[in-house]
């Protein structure tokens, strides 16, 4: 697939998402804003899992670091949204860098367990400092505290536009990154790390970089989620929120730029639609997921790449 067609396809998605806000009914309009923020989280996860081949079970730690880095600045620091967002992103960069230094000493299952354990420690830390974080119950960020550069982010249109802007930014970063030499080296590490090392690359430094980029994007999504939807709670640091991006990326297609969005959209509406049919909606969702892993093991976009768009990044 030629570089220009790749660009048209990816920019087309962003243009389509931008245009949709004018035609969607209110319910789906709200859903899509949420999906775009969550998809930004999945894009971050995909950098580490899909492209570098490192399966983390602790990304909720980064998502929550962004969310609480932002929310605590507003709630207790009296900051306005812009510096608070920045604080959230920085918190994610620092936390992912520190965790990378420890966790990257391991590989495979040990890496999964180490990331899972640190994320659980992060979750418990949030509960422990309940005086500040309000623990499980969490806290609401008031409408007046959510005005960014004069734009009230609690309004649906502004919120949609902010979610779109965030998603577009991380989506384009991801598209750019995986076509750069650095990103190509990450893909090579996923394919055969020992060979990369014996070509003269410092694979540890590359994996460290991938994990910080991944964690920082995840934190950006977490900070935006808290700000756009006006709430920060410990459930966002729970293991569930580490599993979600893994599922989204697997369904959409690990190691594809489009996959995280497609997977998040698919999973969101799968649960949304099946819960309209029966209270046992997780059963329907579960069966669909099993079918997908049987018949599209590389995810939706992964299958597309295999069958039609060879060379899709």
């Amino acid at each position, binding site marked *: 697939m030629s570089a220009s067609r790749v660009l048209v396809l990816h920019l087309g998605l962003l243009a389509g998402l931008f245009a949709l806000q004018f035609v969607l009914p209110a319910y789906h309009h709200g859903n899509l804003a949420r999906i775009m923020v969550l998809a930004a989280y999945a894009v971050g996860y995909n950098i580490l899992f899909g492209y570098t081949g490192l399966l983390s079970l602790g990304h909720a730690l980064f998502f929550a670091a962004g969310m609480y880095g932002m929310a605590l600045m507003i709630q207790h620091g009296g900051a306005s949204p812009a510096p608070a967002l920045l604080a959230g992103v920085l918190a994610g960069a620092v936390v992912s860098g520190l965790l990378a230094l420890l966790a990257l000493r391991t590989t495979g299952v040990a890496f999964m367990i180490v990331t899972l354990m640190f994320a659980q420690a992060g979750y418990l830390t949030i509960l422990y400092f309940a005086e500040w974080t309000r623990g499980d119950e969490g806290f609401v960020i008031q409408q007046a505290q959510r005005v960014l550069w004069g734009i009230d982010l609690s309004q649906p249109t502004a919120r949609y536009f902010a979610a779109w802007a965030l998603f577009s930014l991380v989506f384009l970063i991801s598209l750019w990154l995986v076509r750069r*030499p650095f990103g*190509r*080296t990450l*893909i*090579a590490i996923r*394919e*055969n790390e*020992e*060979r*990369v*090392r*014996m*070509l*003269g*690359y*410092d*694979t540890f430094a590359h994996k460290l970089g991938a994990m910080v980029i991944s964690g920082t994007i995840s934190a950006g999504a977490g900070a935006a989620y808290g700000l756009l939807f006006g709430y920060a709670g410990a459930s966002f640091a729970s293991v569930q929120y580490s599993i979600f991006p893994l599922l989204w990326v697997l369904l959409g297609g690990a190691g594809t730029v489009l996959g995280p969005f497609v997977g998040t959209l698919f999973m969101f509406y799968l649960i949304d639609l099946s819960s309209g049919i029966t209270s046992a909606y997780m059963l329907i969702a579960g069966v669909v997921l099993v079918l997908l892993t049987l018949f599209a093991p590389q995810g939706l976009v992964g299958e597309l790449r295999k069958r039609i768009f060879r060379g899709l990044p």
Partner: protein
Amino acid sequence: MTLLSTRGLSKSFDGLQAVTDVSFEVAKGDIHALIGPNGAGKTTLVGMICGRVAPSAGQVIFDGQDITDLPAHRRIMLGMAYTFQITSIFRGLDVAENVALAARRRHPAPRVAEAVAKALRQVGLAPYSDETAGNLSYGHQRLLEIAMGLVQQPRLLILDEPTQGLSEGEIAGFKTLVRDLKSETTLLLIEHNMSVVMETADRVSVLNAGAILAEGTPAEIRANAAVQAAYLGTSDA
């Protein structure tokens, strides 16, 4: 002039002495073959030279610099290139990208494509550059490994059993390639195939039970009684 030397290099794995007190030198511009029966410690020795295996004792000196404590990727950057005994390529990526990954460490970005094309031409894989590497035949995958080594323009190219599993015709092509490379680089060749060793090498070191048994020109090695007893006489080669 000596490009690579080892001094008293030893390695033991949990008490098993794989390599014992090996000191040898590779002269610049030579094709230096390292031979020995299975289990003689050849791959372990080369692993210590290129940094995949940490030595228990001894030193590795490359171009006058003690590199014993350098990690593998730093040694590669000094001008070593290593091709694996068991084919180790990026099976899911295309052939050109395999070589480009090797080239990017050495060449500035605008020259990578040119260097990749040249290396692929040298080993005869130019027609396959868009093919997925995993779809290549085994012999072509071995050649791809060599192209990945060549494109780095190494000062020392270490080839670990490059002809293993190749057909007679492919081996003949490989001999020609190796002789052509002599003008460009120094080669350390770990090899089982005696015809390749005898026809291409300038010097041969024989490793047996983890120690250097003999060293000399191919003719001297062929005439060496100890080598015949330990290796040639008992081998099917």
